[in-house]
Every structure is written in structure tokens, then in C-alpha cells.
């Protein structure tokens, strides 16, 4: 037995776990070295002591019963799940253990062997895994919350973007806010005249009365200072404010406080968090932008309406002025010419019937009366033609300027058929213009060219086109008396003449008419010339084909 007892002892001490042998009466028969280390007892302190010494006091009583039960029906139980127990060291501290049990009949009587493993580290690892899992769970739910917030913000944004009826939008906005984060949502706006209006209110319970909230002082403070008021916890549904958690955020655009967003919790146990405050700031920022946009839009609309009204008034005034001008022209046309006709007519009759009784000087002077009357008639006609141009509408169409030049020459044939005139007329590209008016331009320019080449033995008149600054430019050039460029400013003025009446007849309206026609086409006209070296008139027409 000696060697086998030694062997047994050696084996027991070599086992990596702790071993406790228990006698049927529950006292410890033997323990190994690992048990001593694990529990902080010496072997001598344990042998003979009840097994429960190694358990926390709260389990000891129940354990006595369990132990007795085991001896009654002993089975070998492997170490495993469900057998995790708490053990107690000598110093009173506890640690988790795993227990395996086996039973043996020995010469010293039946013995139960308990194999004890300290699983503190395993438990810690498990706890770490569990806490990691829990962390993941939290992260997951936070992500979900964040997603929900983003969805909420998107919903808020799209709601605000819907139309320019922003007051209706703010009602819906308040309802949306209540469905997501608060029991109460109230929106106040500062109107243009400085008054504060509650424009939207919503509550989780539609029956709730807004009177329960006593926050108007705080709201006015926020509107004044532009600073957020945040009370996450108000004790017991704070009587003064009528809520248990409160956020009041200013609505600010362009550094101006335009309103306040009030969120309150009155019913649920929930309280506003920093996240809720951030969210409130975010939706307040969006609502403020929306309000600003709407107000700008309304302002723009109002300005538009005013502008339209002003345009209508001006148009009406212009129409009146135009009608007056028309009546004036009509009356000039009718009434001013009649006396001239009488002056001329009776002078002529006088000359015809009584000419013999007048000497040459008398006849010459009567002729002067006639030519002056005719000159005035011409002035009136030209002036009327000029003023008619302002009222007349321009009807642009594709026209061939070359054809118009030939028609113009036909019209004024009496002025050149008996003279030596060489016309050079280039092929002019088709353009967009009012044919009657463009023909008038050529009539006037060609009449001028013919008039001022009267002294030339052979007059050269050239009508052509060139490109100046990328624009098709038409010109009428002659080799006549030309003009002094110093007086270019007066060239296109009404009743402006650069030559003596005796030398060149005319009323000084022709070029003014030409200029007005060109301007009404959106083009421009200019001239070049020198005394004795001819003149050249250039013009462009906008909207050429």
C-alpha cells in the first residue's frame, strides 16, 4: 500500500485543477495543493472542516441538502455548463468555479470527489464578449436612431420645400415634430411690424389644451436674446412651466431672430437629451431658412405687383399722351395746311387774273409769298411724317434691299433722269426690315446724294454693303459737296441744315427720319464726309436674316 499511497498522492497533487474529497458526513477528507492556492486555506485548516466552508454563506444552508441528495444517488457528473458556482476564499472574497463530481468506494468508506476549476478568467472573457456584444447592440440601436433622425430631417425638409404657403407648412411641421420627438410643439413668428404670433401648435394628444404650457415669458426671452433655453429635467411636471422637459430654440436667419420653436414634454417619462437639442437646432435652422425664403418670395411678389401696377399706370399715361399727340397731328394735318392753301391759291389767282397790273417786283414778291407758303406746307408734311414714325408699328419681314433701292430710284426719277448720274448698286443681302420704311431710308439718302451732287458734271452714287465689327453694314456714297465733320452732330437733327437754303432746298427732316427708322429697327447710322469730297452714310439693321 505504501507505494500506491505515494502514487495516489503524487497523482492528486499533479492534477491541474483543485480536488476535494468529501466524506458522506460532508466533511473534507483531503484537498490538494491547487485547492490551498485557490482558496487561501492550508490543508490542515480544511481537512475535517465541512465542505460548505468553501461556499459563500448565503449558499451554505441550501448546499447541505444538495450534498446529502448526491450521496443518496451518486453519479459521476462531468464538468460543464450549469455547474457554475460561486466559491468563497478564506478572506471572504468570492470567485466563480466550475465543479465536476465523481463518487468512489474506498477502503476508508464512500468518498465524493469534487474537481474544482477557477473560471474567473473564463468568466471575465465571457463578460468581455458579452459586453462587446452589448456594445454592438447599442451601436446598432444608435445607428437606427440616427437613421430615424435623418429620415425625420428629410421629411421635415421635404415638407418645408413643398410650397410657398409656409404657414400651412409650419402646422404640418409641428405635427411631424410631435409625432417624433416631443409632446408639444409650438412655433412663434415675429411679424414685419414686430408683433409676435403663435402660428403653429401641435400636441401628441389632440385634445390637450395649450394653456397648460406657461412658457410665454421664456419664449419672449428667447426671441429677445436669440439664445436657446434648454431644461432637460424639470421636477414633477414643473408647475410654473407646465412641462417636465423643455427646449426653446430661436429661429434665426441673416442674424435676425424671426421666431422661436418650442418643444415640450408633459406626459411621458422621457426627457430631452443633448441629441434632441441638436435635432431641435437642426430643424429650427431649416424652418428659419424656409420662413426667410417664403418672406423673400412674398416680398418679391409684392414688389412685382407694385411694378406691374406702375407699368400699367405709365402705359395708361403714355396711351393718353399718344392719343393727344395723334389728335394734335391730325389737327395740324387738317387745319394748318388749309390757310396755306388759301395763301398760295389766292396769290396764284392774283397773279393769273391781275398779273398784268403788277410790275416785275410786285410779281416777284407775290411769287415769294407762294414759295413760302409751299415751303411751310412741306415743313408740315415732313414733320407729320416724322412724328408718324414714332407711332407707326414696324413690321419686319425678309426683304431684298436691292429691290427697295431700285424702287426708291423709280420714285425719285424726276430728280435724276435729266442728269448725268452713274449709279453703282451692289447686290445687297436679304435682311429683316419693314419694307416701306427701309425704302423710305433709301429714298431719303438717295435724294440727298442727288441733291448734293448737283454741281458735279457726272455724279457717282454708290449703294453697297460691307461688314463692320461683324455686322452687315449698308452704305450710300456720293461724290458731291460733302460736309464738314465738325457739324456731324447736327446732321441727323430735325430741321438742321448744313447748307444755305438758296443752294440746297429742303426742310432738314430727311436725315432725322432716316435715323429714326434705323433706330426703330434697332440699328445705328453714322456718316463720313469732307467738304468738296463727297459724303458716305452707313447704317446697320438688327435682327438680320
Amino acid at each position, binding site marked *: 500500500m505504501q507505494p500506491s499511497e505515494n502514487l495516489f498522492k503524487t497523482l492528486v497533487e499533479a492534477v491541474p485543477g483543485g480536488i476535494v474529497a468529501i466524506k458522506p458526513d460532508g466533511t473534507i477528507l483531503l484537498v490538494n495543493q491547487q485547492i490551498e492556492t485557490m482558496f487561501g486555506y492550508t490543508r490542515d485548516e480544511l481537512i475535517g472542516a465541512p465542505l460548505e466552508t468553501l461556499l459563500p454563506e448565503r449558499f451554505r444552508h441550501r448546499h447541505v441538502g444538495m450534498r446529502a441528495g448526491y450521496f443518496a444517488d451518486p453519479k459521476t457528473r462531468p464538468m460543464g455548463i450549469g455547474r457554475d458556482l460561486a466559491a468563497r476564499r478564506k478572506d471572504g472574497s468570492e470567485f466563480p468555479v466550475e465543479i465536476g463530481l465523481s463518487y468512489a468506494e474506498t477502503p476508508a468508506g464512500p468518498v465524493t470527489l469534487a474537481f474544482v476549476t477557477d473560471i474567473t478568467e473564463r468568466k471575465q472573457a465571457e463578460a468581455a464578449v458579452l459586453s462587446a456584444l452589448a456594445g454592438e447592440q447599442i451601436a446598432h440601436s444608435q445607428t437606427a436612431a440616427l437613421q430615424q433622425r435623418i429620415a425625420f430631417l428629410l421629411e421635415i425638409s421635404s415638407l418645408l420645400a413643398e410650397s410657398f404657403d409656409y404657414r400651412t407648412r409650419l402646422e404640418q411641421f409641428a405635427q411631424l415634430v410631435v409625432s417624433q420627438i416631443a409632446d408639444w410643439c409650438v412655433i412663434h413668428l415675429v411679424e414685419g411690424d414686430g408683433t409676435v404670433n403663435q402660428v403653429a401648435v401641435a400636441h401628441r394628444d389632440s385634445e390637450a389644451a395649450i394653456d397648460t404650457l406657461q412658457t410665454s415669458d421664456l419664449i419672449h426671452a428667447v426671441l429677445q436674446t436669440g439664445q436657446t433655453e434648454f431644461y432637460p429635467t424639470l421636477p414633477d411636471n414643473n408647475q410654473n412651466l407646465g412641462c417636465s422637459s423643455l427646449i426653446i430654440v430661436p429661429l434665426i436667419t441673416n442674424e435676425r431672430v424671426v421666431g422661436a420653436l418650442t418643444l415640450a414634454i408633459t406626459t411621458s417619462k422621457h426627457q430631452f437629451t443633448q441629441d434632441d437639442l441638436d435635432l431641435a437646432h437642426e430643424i429650427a435652422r431649416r424652418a428659419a431658412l424656409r420662413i426667410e425664403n417664403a418672406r423673400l418670395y412674398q416680398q418679391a411678389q409684392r414688389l412685382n405687383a407694385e411694378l406691374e401696377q406702375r407699368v400699367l399706370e405709365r402705359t395708361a399715361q403714355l396711351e393718353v399722351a399718344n392719343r393727344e399727340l395723334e389728335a394734335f*397731328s*391730325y389737327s395740324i*394735318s*387738317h*387745319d394748318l*395746311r*388749309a*390757310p*396755306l*392753301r*388759301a395763301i*398760295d*391759291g*389766292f*396769290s*396764284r*389767282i392774283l397773279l393769273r387774273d391781275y398779273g398784268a397790273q403788277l410790275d416785275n417786283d410786285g410779281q416777284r414778291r407775290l411769287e415769294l409769298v*407762294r414759295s413760302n*407758303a*409751299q415751303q*411751310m*406746307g*412741306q415743313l408740315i*408734311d415732313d414733320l*407729320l411724317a416724322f412724328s*408718324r414714325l414714332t407711332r407707326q408699328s414696324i413690321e419686319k419681314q425678309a426683304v431684298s434691299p436691292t429691290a427697295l433701292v431700285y424702287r426708291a430710284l423709280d420714285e425719285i426719277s424726276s430728280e435724276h433722269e435729266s442728269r448725268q448720274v452713274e449709279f453703282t448698286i451692289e447686290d445687297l443681302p436679304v435682311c429683316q426690315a419693314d419694307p416701306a420704311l427701309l425704302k423710305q431710308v433709301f429714298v431719303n439718302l438717295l435724294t440727298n446724294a442727288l441733291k448734293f451732287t448737283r454741281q458735279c458734271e457726272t455724279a457717282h452714287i454708290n449703294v453697297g454693303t460691307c461688314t463692320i465689327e461683324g455686322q452687315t453694314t449698308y452704305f450710300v456714297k456720293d461724290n458731291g459737296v460733302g460736309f464738314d465733320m465738325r457739324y456731324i452732330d447736327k446732321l441727323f437733327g430735325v430741321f438742321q441744315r448744313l447748307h444755305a437754303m438758296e443752294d440746297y432746298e429742303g426742310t432738314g427732316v430727311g436725315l432725322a427720319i432716316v435715323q429714326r427708322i434705323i433706330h426703330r429697327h434697332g440699328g445705328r447710322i453714322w456718316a463720313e464726309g469732307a467738304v468738296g469730297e463727297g459724303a458716305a452714310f452707313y447704317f446697320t439693321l438688327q435682327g438680320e436674316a
Partner: protein
Amino acid sequence: MANDSVEILLVEDNPNDVELTLDALKENKLANRIEVVRDGAAALEFLFCTGAYANRDCSSQIKLILLDLKLPKVNGLEVLEQIRADPKTRTIPVVILTSSREERDIVQSYQLGINSYIVKPVDFEQFTTAVKHLGFYWLLLNQQPRG
């Protein structure tokens, strides 16, 4: 055609123009049978043989009406309208003899069925020539339907 029947009706309120027109007609030997009325109402009375002209023989149709536009009482265009509305006068040639070059007047006159539109020139020479041409054309050349 009876000798005493009126061939031309001149409707003109301006006495100077009346005198000048008559002179021009006379110069062209066209002034034999001309009736002058000084406003639109008188023109209508003459044409429809009412009022002052109730005793006129309405069966004798005149050959030409020289009509000014700007007239007292009833203006030229209204006179023209009534002339064209009545079958008895519808076919009488009407020449507008006016100071107005306004496009509006010209268009309206043609729309009411005038035969010519003459703007009285300031130059009496031109005026005489115009009267000569129109008298020659409407009284001598032009063939009218028999009344």
C-alpha cells in the same frame, strides 16, 4: 340729260377751299352745273331731296360727289356711309377731297367704298391739275350704270 341738272356736288365747309375749288373747276371748264353745300347734313338733304332740298327732282342723278372729311354737323365719313347704304345713291362716284394725309382716314374712306382719295395740296398749281384730272376722268371718261 337736262341742262339744269346738277352734275357735281361739292361738300366743303371752308369758304376759301370752296372758292379755290370752284376756280379750279372753272379753269378747267367743269363748273357749269355744280352745287355747293357747307356741311354734312345739307349734303344728305340734297342727296335724299329732304329739308331745304325737298323740292329737288330726285330722279336726276348727279355724276360726282366731292366730299371733304372734316365737316360740321355730320362728318364726311358718316355722309359717305349713308350714301353707300342707300340704293338710290350707292353708285354715285365719291371722291374724297381733304387736307388729311392720315392713314386712318384713307383706310376708313376706302373701306366705305370711295372711288378716289385726293389730298388737297398746298400748291394751287397741283390742286388745279388734280381737279382737272378728276373732273375729266369721272365726268367724261367714266361710264356709270344708268339709274
